[in-house]
C-alpha cells in the first residue's frame, strides 16, 4: 500500500513539474521567446558561479567531515613513504583540478552570450598546444619516477632474516601458518587438504612441517621493527590480503604463491593510545570478491614487541602435534626458550 502511494506521489511530482515546465514555455511565448531566452541565459550563466561556489564549499566541508574518520597514520615503514607519495600526487592533481575547474566555470560565466560581442574565432595555436602537451608530460614523468622507485623498492626481495608467515584464504576465512622453531615453512599440496586435521594440506613426509603452527582464524602476529614476509595462497577462489593500516595488498590466487613484505613500526597498543580508541585493532580484509561471505572475511593483525611475540609463540603447539597426540605427545616446553629470546633481542 505504502509502495503504491509512493509511486503515486512520484508520478504526481512528475506531472506537476511537467505542468510547471509547460507553463514556463507559455510564459516564454507570451514574453517573446527572444527576451525570455536572454533572461534565462543570464540566470543560467550566473548559476554557473553559484554551482562553482557550492562545489568548492562542499569539497571543503566534506574534507572537514572526513578527516577525523580516516585511517590513522601508516603503521609500516612502507606505508609512511606511501603516505608521502600520496600527498605529492594530491598536490599535483589538486593544482590541476583547481585550475581547470575554475577556468571551466569562470569561462562559462564570463563568456555567456551577449549581443554586443562577437565570439573570437580561435581555432588553433601550436604554441599553446605544445605548452599543454609538455607540462602534463613533465608532471607525469615526475609522478612515474617517484612511483616506480617506490614500486620497485616494495616489490623487491624481502630482506634476509625477515619473519615468514603464510596466510591462506578460503571461503570465508583466513588461515595463517608460522614456521615454528626451525624457521622454515614445510611443503604443502592441495590434495592433502581435509577440513578435519589438515587445513592447509601439509605434507607430513616433509620434516619441516612437523613444527609448523597453524592459526585457523588467520590471526597475524607481527613484531614491531621486524620485517615480515607474507606468503600468500588460496584454497579455492581468488581472495585478497588487504592490510589497510600498512598500505599493502596482494591477491591470494589458487595455484600461485604471491608474496609481500613490510616492516610494522607501531604496535597495536601504541596505536590504541595514538588514536585514543581502546578498541582499535589492525584488520585484514578480503579485498577480492570471493562469494557470499566476502564481506565477513576478516582476520586480526596484532603488532607486538619481540618479547610478547616470543611468549605467544611458546604457548603454541605445532599443528602436527595438535592432530596427532598419540604419535607425538606435546613437546615438553623447553626451559631454554626464554634465554633464546633474550639472545635474539640482544643480537638485534
Amino acid at each position, binding site marked *: 500500500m505504502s509502495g503504491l502511494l509512493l509511486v503515486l506521489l512520484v508520478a504526481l511530482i512528475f506531472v506537476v513539474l511537467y505542468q510547471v*515546465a509547460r507553463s514556463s514555455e507559455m510564459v516564454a511565448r507570451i514574453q517573446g521567446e527572444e527576451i525570455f531566452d536572454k533572461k534565462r541565459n543570464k540566470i543560467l550563466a550566473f548559476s554557473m558561479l553559484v554551482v562553482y561556489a557550492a562545489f568548492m564549499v562542499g569539497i571543503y566541508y566534506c574534507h572537514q567531515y572526513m578527516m577525523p574518520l580516516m585511517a590513522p597514520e601508516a603503521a609500516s615503514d612502507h606505508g609512511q613513504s606511501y603516505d608521502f607519495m600520496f600527498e605529492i600526487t594530491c598536490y599535483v592533481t589538486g593544482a590541476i583540478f583547481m585550475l581547470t575547474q575554475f577556468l571551466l566555470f569562470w569561462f562559462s560565466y564570463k563568456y555567456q552570450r551577449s549581443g554586443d560581442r562577437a565570439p573570437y574565432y580561435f581555432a588553433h595555436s601550436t604554441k599553446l598546444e605544445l605548452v599543454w602537451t609538455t607540462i602534463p608530460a613533465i608532471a607525469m614523468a615526475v609522478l612515474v619516477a617517484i612511483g616506480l622507485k617506490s614500486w*620497485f623498492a616494495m616489490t623487491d626481495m624481502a630482506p634476509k632474516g625477515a619473519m615468514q608467515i603464510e596466510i591462506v584464504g578460503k571461503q570465508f576465512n583466513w588461515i595463517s601458518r608460522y614456521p615454528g622453531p626451525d624457521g622454515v615453512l614445510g611443503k604443502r599440496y592441495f590434495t592433502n587438504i581435509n577440513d578435519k586435521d589438515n587445513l592447509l594440506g601439509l605434507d607430513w613426509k616433509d620434516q619441516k612441517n612437523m613444527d609448523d603452527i597453524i592459526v585457523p582464524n588467520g590471526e597475524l602476529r607481527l613484531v614491531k621493527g621486524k620485517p615480515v614476509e607474507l606468503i600468500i595462497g588460496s584454497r579455492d577462489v581468488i581472495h585478497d590480503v588487504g592490510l589497510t593500516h600498512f598500505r599493502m595488498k596482494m591477491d591470494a590466487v589458487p595455484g600461485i604463491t604471491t608474496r609481500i613484505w613490510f616492516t610494522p613500526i607501531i604496535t597495536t597498543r601504541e596505536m590504541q593510545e595514538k588514536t585514543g580508541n581502546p578498541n582499535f585493532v589492525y584488520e585484514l580484509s578480503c579485498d577480492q570478491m570471493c562469494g557470499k561471505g566476502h564481506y565477513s572475511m576478516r582476520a586480526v593483525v596484532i603488532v607486538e614487541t619481540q618479547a610478547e611475540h616470543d611468549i605467544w609463540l611458546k604457548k603454541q603447539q605445532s599443528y602436527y602435534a595438535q592432530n596427532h597426540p598419540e604419535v607425538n605427545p606435546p613437546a615438553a616446553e623447553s626451559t631454554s626458550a626464554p634465554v633464546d629470546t633474550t639472545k635474539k633481542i640482544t643480537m638485534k
Partner: protein
Amino acid sequence: MSNEATIHQHDVHTHDDHSHDDHSHHEHAHHEHKQHFLTKYVFSQDHKIISRQFLITGIFWAIIGGLMSVFFRLQLGFPEETFKVLSTFLGDWAPNGKMDPEMYYGLITIHGTVLVFFVLTAGLSGTFSNFLIPLQIGARDMASPFLNMLSYWFFAVAGIIMFVSLFTSTGPASGGWTTYPPLSALKEASMGSGIGMDLWLASMSLFVISSLLGGLNYIVTILNMRTKGMSMTRMPLTIWAFLFTAVLGVLSFPVLLSACVLLIFDRHMGTSFYLSEIYIAGKALPNVGGSPILYQHLFWFLGHPEVYIIMLPAMGMASEILSTHSRKPIFGYMAMVLSLIGITVLAFLVWAHHMFVTGMSPFLGGIFVLLTLLIAIPSAVKVFNWLTTIFRGNIRFTVPMLFALGFVSLFISGGLTGLFLGNSALDIHLHDTYFVVAHFHIVMGISAFFGMFAGVYHWFPKMYGRFMNNTLGYIHFFITFAGSYVIFWPMHYEGLAGMPRRYYDFTNWESFKQFADLNQMISIAAIIVFFAQLLFVFNYFVSIWKGKKVTTQNPWNANSLEWTTPILPGHGNWDGPIPEVHRWAYDYRDNGEGGDFIPQNVPLRDGEESH
C-alpha cells in the same frame, strides 16, 4: 559500397539516382511508399530507427540497472533496517525485507554489466554512431543496413537472456561484473555461478557479436561513404570519435569472446584453462596447471579499451556541442584528432594496470605504470582544448550545453584520480576500495552519461522533430550534477581509509564502521538522483509526442550536415541529392550576412581559403 548501391540493394525508397547530380527527381520524392509496421519500426534497416531502438533499449536497461543500485544502496546505507519494497521486487531473495547477500552480489554484478555494456556501450555508441555517422558524413545509410539491423537484434537477444537470468532459482551471475574465475567457474563457489553465470556468458557472447557487426559497419561506412568534399579532416569530431570507438571494439571484443568461451569450457567440459589446485566443498578438484590470471589478462584486454569505447563517443559529442553552443570552432581540431589516436593506441597497452596486485612481475607492472600515465597527456590536451573552445565564446546555456560543461567537469575530476590508480605504488593500497568505485563512476559512468544526455538533448530535434522540455532538462541537469558529486566525492575518502568495494555490510569492521552515517547520506542522494533520471525518461517519452515542434531545419544553427536534411528525414536522409561539402565542420564565424556560422555545404566565398 556506394550510397546509391546501399539504398537500392535493400529496396529502400530513394529520391535520387545520382547523389551528386543536380538533377533530382522530385516527382519521385513524394511518392508514398507504404511500409508494414514490422519493417518500418521493428525490423527496420533505417539507421535512424535502429539508433532509436538502441537508445530506448538502453534507457530500459539504465532504469533496470539504476533500480538495482537503489536496492543495494538501501542495504549499504541502512544495513540494520528492513524494506518492504525489497521483498516486493526481490521476493524470496529478500525475506522480510532484508536482502540476501547472494542477491546483493547478483545486483552489483548485473548493475555493472548492464550499465557498462548495455547502456554505455550499446546505448551510447550504438545510438549515436548509428544516428550520426550517415547523417554527418553525408550518406544515405550504413554500408550494410542489414548487418546493422542484425547488430541491434543480437543486442536485444543478449539483453533478453540477461533479463531471464534474473529470474532463475539460483539467481543471476554474482561474481562482480568482471566475473573472475575460479569463483565464476565453479558452481560450488557461489549460487550465482550456476545457471545464472551460463546465461551471463551466453548473453555476453551475443553482445560481442552485436558489437562487432555494428563496429565493422561504422568503420566501413566512415571510410567509404563520405559525401563529395568530406575529406577525413573535415569530419566533425563526433565521427572521428565513433571511428576510433569502433576500431577499439573490433580489435578488443573478440578477446572477451575468447575469455568467455574458455570459461564455458572450464565450467562444462572439464578443461583447466583457469583452474589449478583447488579444494572446494570438501574435495580437491582434479584441475591442475591453469591460471586464473589468464582470464584477467583476457578480460582486461577488452576491459580497458572498453572504458574508452564508452568515453570516446561522449568526448566526440561534447566537442561538437561545446563548439556549437559557444558559437566558436573547436580549438585545436588536429590536436583533438591526434589525442583520440593516442588514446586509442594506448588503450591497448595498459590493461594490466587492473592487475597490479595479482602478483604479476613487478617489472611488467612498471611498464604498465609508464604506459598508463602516458594516457594522461592526450586526456589533458583534450581538457585544455575544451576550455579554450569556450574561452571568449558566446555561450548559449541550452540543456545540451550544460550537460557538455558538466561532462568536462566530471571528466577532469574522475580523470585526475586515475593518476593515483595508474601508479602501481599508490594502487597497491587503493585497489578494490571505494576509491576505485568513485574514480570509475565519475570518469566513465557519470561523465559518459553526461555526454550521452548532452547528445540526446542536442539531437532529439533531429530524431523526433520536436524539442525536449527545457525546464525539465535544467532540473535534470542540476540535480544530476550536484547529486553525482555528493554521491561519489566522499567515496574517495572511504577508499583512502581502505573501505573495500563489494561489501554487503561494514558494521562488524572496526576500520570501516565509522562511515555508517556517510553511507546513509550517499544512499539517500543516490535515490534522489535515480528519480531525477526518471524525470528525464518522462521528458523523453512525453516529448516524442507532446514536445515543442521544431520549425526550422537548423534549430541550433550548427554547421554539420545532419541539419541540412528535412526536419524529419525519411529513409535515405536527403530528399534531393546529398549535399556536397566545401569546408570543415567548425566554421563558426561571420558569414558576411550577419550570421555567426557557415554550414559545411556552403561553398567557399571568393578568396576564402578552406581551413
